[in-house]
């Protein structure tokens, strides 16, 4: 009996100490004050020199933390505890955070540099009149491929090239229901936000015909496989494709003409902010033409900042694979928040497609 009590007490004491330490760490790590802001961003998603420059110019110190998924980021903000002043959610996450009331409206009078952003990227359906968000980087979903490993006639100018019998057992897909179902819908010339059971059925049936060509449906593991020439064709995001092409110069990227997804990562001020003025100063700083140009150079994604594009290497900005032309851009669609019911349906159809692979 005695050792049992001792053990119980020991466990309780250890738990207590752990809670206490965690609490201290959290409040010490991000105590809100007027001369500090905490930025919560994706990994490798900012030029670190710019953070220093921001501190030099404004005297505001930056605590920089990173996350690797939208969901993880939202969970941490929802829990509170840490005083994040800036976060960088993707557009569908913006809608969820809005629904959960996790965002603070932006004061546009404190963001004069907002005029640098190309109007094409403002006032988008996920955030009308940019009440909560400023676009940070954007990109597309498309096909990254290695022309040396596949038939010459495959250019992925059309989604239907993925169905080509020459690609039997060669195609990798990203493990996302919106991406894959969206690709199926796009290949039929339909909207990737369709809420129509008959259309989704048709898209799924078409995808099931793709099964013989599928090698695997995976996540970030596609990147090393493409870099090492172990995979030759993959459906992926332009950002990931840019990373791969940086490492392996043989690779090419295409956005099929039927249209595809247009995604945005956005700067927002979450409810956890302790220094709202500092956060506005930071957003305005990141919108500055020179800063945005330097950042886009470093990160390698497409910037929505028109003034910055003028300052960038014309060759980069003219690369239609990452800065598609008007005609194609008009065919790109932003994911709308489908609501849980339709999101569930997309996932059920996606599951059915996955089950058909063998």
């Amino acid at each position: 009996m005695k050792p049992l009590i001792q053990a119980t007490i020991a466990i309780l004491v250890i738990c207590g100490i752990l809670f206490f330490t965690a609490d201290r760490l959290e409040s010490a790590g991000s105590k809100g004050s007027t001369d500090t802001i905490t930025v919560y961003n994706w990994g490798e998603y900012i030029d670190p020199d710019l953070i220093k420059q921001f501190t030099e110019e404004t005297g505001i110190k930056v605590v920089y933390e990173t996350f690797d998924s939208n969901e993880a980021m939202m969970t941490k903000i929802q829990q509170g505890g840490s005083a994040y002043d800036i976060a960088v959610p993707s557009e569908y996450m913006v809608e969820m955070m809005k629904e959960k009331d996790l965002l603070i409206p932006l004061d546009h009078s404190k963001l004069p540099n907002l005029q640098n952003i190309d109007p094409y990227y403002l006032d988008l359906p996920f955030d009308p009149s940019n009440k909560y968000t400023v676009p940070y980087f954007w990109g597309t979903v498309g096909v990254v491929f290695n022309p040396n490993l596949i038939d010459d006639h495959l250019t992925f100018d059309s989604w239907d090239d993925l169905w080509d019998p020459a690609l039997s057992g060669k195609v990798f897909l990203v493990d996302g229901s919106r991406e894959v179902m969206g690709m199926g819908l796009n290949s039929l010339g339909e909207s990737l936000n369709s809420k129509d059971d008959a259309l989704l059925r048709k898209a799924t049936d078409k995808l099931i015909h793709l099964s013989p060509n599928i090698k695997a449906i995976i996540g970030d593991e596609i990147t090393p496989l493409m870099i090492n020439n172990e995979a030759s064709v993959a459906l992926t995001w332009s950002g990931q494709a840019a990373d791969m092409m940086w490492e392996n110069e043989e690779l090419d990227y295409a956005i099929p003409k039927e249209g595809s997804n247009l995604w945005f990562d956005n700067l927002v001020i979450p409810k956890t902010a302790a220094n709202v003025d500092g956060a506005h100063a930071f957003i305005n700083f990141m919108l500055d033409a020179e800063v945005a140009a330097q950042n886009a150079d470093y990160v390698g994604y497409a910037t929505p900042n028109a003034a910055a594009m003028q300052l960038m290497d014309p060759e980069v900005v003219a690369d239609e694979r990452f800065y598609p032309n008007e005609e194609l851009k008009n065919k790109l669609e932003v994911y709308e928040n489908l609501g849980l019911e339709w999101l569930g349906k997309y996932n059920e159809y996606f599951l059915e497609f996955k089950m058909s692979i063998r």
Partner: protein
Amino acid sequence: MRNKVSTGSLFPYFIWIVLFVIAPIALIVYYSMLDLDGNFTLDNYKAFFTPVYLKMTLTSFWYAFLITFFTLLISYPTAFFLTKTKHKHLWLMLIIIPSWINLLLKTYAFIGIFGLYGPLNAVVKVFGFEPQQILFTDFSFIFVSVYIFIPFMIIPIFNALDKLNPTLIYAARDLGASSFTTFRRVVFPLTIAGVKSGIQTTFIPALSLFMITRLIAGNQVITLGTAIEQQFLVSQNWGMGSTIAVFLIIIMFISMLLTSQKSKGGRV
């Protein structure tokens, strides 16, 4: 007095079981009867009995069976020979050590090993064959799973074999039984308890494998575990996710019953 002490000392365990066994299962059952808006419904159960999920259940079962079968096939002889070696506990240790390494790390290592330019294909090339696509096949999935479960199967079998009284074997031999008959009639029946608990520790987790199905099998193998992960993380349909979990619990319960120890005699 004796009685009182034992109930008192059982109290922490009782709390533990209520908090960490009964309450979670009750919560899962509760959530399985909720729809997206939190209303009471049995639609999730109806949805489970559609071809997609039934096929998935069968697939999970089939792969869990294959994994358990091959794990047992490798583990029993290994455990048997281990007990015959001189430094058997050292050897056992060496087999167990890999299980200390993080599962995900081992899985990633296999991506490299099985790759088109990996060491395994280098060996294939030495023998004059074309590099084979090993990753994202049934073979790679079952191989990696079996590799991961082997220590968990060997330990209980090893313990059972180790505890086996050698005089029984001598007796069998003295009475004229051949090596094979001794094994079949004496050794195996006496170690069946170890085999059963080995099967439990393999089959049940194998049913709900999910990371390996993506990393090694490239989602060509979809198990119930994958579906639960997707329902919770992507669809945010906790109801359906819980419903699948309920069926998983039922299946586990049945397999526990089938492999449970009978407290009949026969032990020494």
